[in-house]
């Protein structure tokens, strides 16, 4: 079992990987936690990209989201290699468009719906194998190596954000492995985010000119998304459940 990454610079020399550490011949850093209990840090996990100081999130402006536009769904499907094969009961659906009409006022709204990357994800709570997990930077993922396909997480998710792969899959994208018998959902395009990019849906939304989706670090007070959240009213879906989703909506 690995020790969790330590953020204390005195304990974990920054930018030093295991090989450099042994090459340098530096002494093993140690912290005394309690009498007789010592935490030793061997070079640490300086390479980890999932930074606990960050929380990736998204802000969706419902007023800017066009009813007839499906660009985010198409972009996600192309990027991650899932398809709608005309079997709505069983097709994978990482992201979908929802049209809402207010019963009293008749106001119509359209919005994209996907994994909300909750701070307190119910899918993680119920997973019996630990396959459903939240990364240090707030991205909720399924580790398909340990997923047994029980689908408890699909039941637990209040947003119906997860799907089960019912059929054999071939020619997956190298960055998005997926296969029969496992559960999957929006990964917030973690392979792009780790390389400093933005999710495919956000990219396609700005390409259409709607610009309804904004992506960024909620913990960085200077980021566009944090400023927007500070200045405008927004909600997380099903706020009553106190899951604190990382995806938030304005003008809903």
């Amino acid at each position, binding site marked *: 079992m690995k020790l969790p*990454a330590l953020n204390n610079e005195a304990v974990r020399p920054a930018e030093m990987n295991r090989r450099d550490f042994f090459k340098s011949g530096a002494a093993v850093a140690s912290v005394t936690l309690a009498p007789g209990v010592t935490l030793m840090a061997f070079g640490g996990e300086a390479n*980890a*990209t999932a930074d606990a100081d960050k929380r990736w999130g998204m802000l969706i402006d419902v007023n800017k989201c066009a009813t007839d536009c499906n660009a985010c769904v198409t972009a996600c499907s192309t990027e991650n290699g899932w398809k709608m094969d005309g079997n709505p009961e069983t097709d994978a659906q990482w992201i979908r468009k929802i049209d809402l009409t207010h019963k009293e006022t008749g106001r119509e709204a359209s919005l994209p719906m996907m994994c909300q990357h909750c701070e307190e994800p119910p899918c993680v709570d119920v997973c019996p194998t630990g396959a459903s997990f939240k*990364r240090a930077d707030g991205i909720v993922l399924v580790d*398909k190596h340990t997923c047994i396909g029980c689908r408890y997480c699909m039941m637990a998710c209040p947003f119906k954000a997860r799907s089960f792969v019912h059929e054999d899959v*071939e020619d997956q994208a*190298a960055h998005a*492995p997926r*296969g029969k018998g496992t559960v999957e959902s929006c990964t917030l395009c973690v*392979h792009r985010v780790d390389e400093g990019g933005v999710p495919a849906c956000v990219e396609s939304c700005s390409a259409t000119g709607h610009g309804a989706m904004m992506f960024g670090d909620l913990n960085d007070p200077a980021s566009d998304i944090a400023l927007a959240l500070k200045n405008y009213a927004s909600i997380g879906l099903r706020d009553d459940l106190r899951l604190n989703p990382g995806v938030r909506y304005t003008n809903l």
Partner: protein
Amino acid sequence: MKRLMAFLVIVFVATGGGAFAGSLYPEIPKAVGAAHPEGSAFMRINHMKLLRHDRDETMRLGNRDTQYSLKECVACHAVMGPDALPISVKEEGHFCRSCHEYAAVKVDCFQCHNSKPDAGFTALLAQSPAASSDDIAAYLDGVTQ
């Protein structure tokens, strides 16, 4: 001494290799990139341990700069079919399959992962330098171990 050994192995393979054509041993396709510095014997025994370790690093911690990745395995060990495109594990002659079939060990990786490299990856490999004499010596060390 090492060089002499390497030379002897080459001579042995060049002259006696033909005798093995009908042997019971699997025919393992050559990779395109540089040889593993750890040697092939080490990789033969430990590849899954290395992959399992690094997959958790990538999946759980987001470390995409790991030393071993399945993505690179399938790219470097790609076997081209008659259409000059990489073949999948479902086709005979695939690198992983050639050995796993012989050892009767099921490969689960490709239930989720693609057994063929990305188009971009193939292009990248074409640019990668050919194996140096040191790499070849390391490879031969692995073979003779």
